[in-house]
């Protein structure tokens, strides 16, 4: 299509094609010796990949207090929580108990549930129907600053 014409020049608008055009080889094509390392290139390590199995269900929480020091959970540590995992005996879980979040080891015994701290100075808690109790998610990893 012609767009503009002057005495000496005619202008045309370029055609808009859908073609992707030529393929660009990122590595380039070299006439010399091929890089021997090229075939062994691997992905860099990713902590996300290591620590997070299910990203839609993963949340983070900060530990406050000493009740789980025996399990390696110190004050200010960062917890990785997976909500998609089923609660099981002996798993460490983030629970919501009577208005507060708490992290404890689950002890499931027939139809009784106990929350067990990992610090002798803290009492073991028996969950009864009186409690406002939710198992919020299962702790999969703990990240600490050194």
């Amino acid at each position, binding site marked *: 299509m012609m767009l503009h014409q002057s005495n000496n020049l005619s202008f045309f*608008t370029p055609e808009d094609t859908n073609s992707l055009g030529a393929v660009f080889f990122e590595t380039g094509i070299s006439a010399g010796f091929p890089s021997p390392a090229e075939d062994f290139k691997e992905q860099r390590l990713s902590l996300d990949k290591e620590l997070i199995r299910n990203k*839609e269900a993963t949340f*983070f929480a*900060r530990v406050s207090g000493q009740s789980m020091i025996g399990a390696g959970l110190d004050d200010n540590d960062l917890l990785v929580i997976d909500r*998609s995992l089923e609660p099981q005996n002996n798993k460490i879980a*983030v629970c919501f108990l009577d208005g507060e*979040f708490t992290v404890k080891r689950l002890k499931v015994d027939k139809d009784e549930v106990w929350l067990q701290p990992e610090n002798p100075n803290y009492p073991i808690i028996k969950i009864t129907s009186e409690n406002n109790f939710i198992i*919020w998610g299962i702790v999969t990893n703990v990240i600490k600053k050194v």
Partner: protein
Amino acid sequence: MYALVDCNNFYASCERAFNPNLRNKPMAILSNNDGCVIARSDEAKVIGLPMGAPIFKWDRFCKENGIQVFSSNYPLYGDMSGRVMSILEQFTPDVEVYSIDEAFIQFKGFENYNFNEYGSQIRTRILKWTGIPTCVGMAPTKALSKVANKIARKFPNQTKGVYVIDSEEKRIKALKWIKIKDVWGIGRGLTKRLKAKGCTTALDFVLLPDDWVRKNFSIVEWKLKKDLEGIPTLQLDEVKTKQAIATTRSFEYTFSDIENIKERISTFATSCAEKLRKQGSSCHIIYVVLSSDRHKKELEQHRASKLVSLTYPSDSSLIISQEAVKAVTSIFKAGIKYKRAGVVVMGLVPTTNHQLHLFESENPKHKPLMRAIDGLNAKYADYKIKIGNQDLKRTWKMRQERLSPRYTTNINEIIKVK
């Protein structure tokens, strides 16, 4: 088969996921700047807090009735919405995100499935993984799935949050149940016209003669009628990206000087451009609005808008900001106390389809420049890089006095466990 998956009281549910104390309590969420109520929990609706209530008038009511009030926490709602949507993609590849809290999904080749059970699985997974309760309505067409969803929501005990319209009998029953004004896509004007014709339910609408509907209504209503009859006419929206992006705000104060307004408009335009680049779109049209405080009737009122068409689509903050500022300068009237402004970008095209224009073309340097700015802003947060006409010390001065923590997007605001 289609399904409409809708999050129940989405904003309230997001807050509750990280603060279970709020369960079963009345809650309200405020608009940007803490202006008025934009979302309510069922409990707040029962107490009688109206939608859109200006909070300064209803603050006492909320306090007296124990309604917990929150500023809108879009970083949290956005992240939770993303999680819900990507869980849906695990159930079917055909997902149309319809809004922040609802999605249409389609099941092609799922004929042997027990849809009641599948719907229940969807609901259970979203609830367990994210803590967000949903309702699932399933039916052979989009419009019917919307009706099914309403039934699931209205009768939680019988349906357990999932309702499937899979027989002619159920379809008729559903259409008889739903009022015409509650049918998807039937607005207030249409309700009035249909009521005059004696239509009070969706069934009445469907029973209208085809010819009459065709003659008296637009193609949209015709398609809707077919959809409600069980003939799939409305397809999943294939356009995955947004058709328009808007940034509009009320100011904290009123402005009568052009400099301040230019600065605000430039900031809004930059924000629109950023969102464009994020979704890989460029815009053809920039729409700028400027208005005085319509609640202050004693002051001189002025509301003006201007639409600018670009000769070539752009996603450059520099271009969009420049054009928006030019536009606002042309509609600005001296002596008016302005309270609100906005920038909307429309006519979006995928950025890759740029057609080059011989006489006017974007400076090719914009592209790497924008990439660098976006990168730096993402890295250092809080908008370290701005264009010259944006005030450097000024960021979003949104009033957010009752903001909950950004539990999922800021490491310093995650939940604490004892």
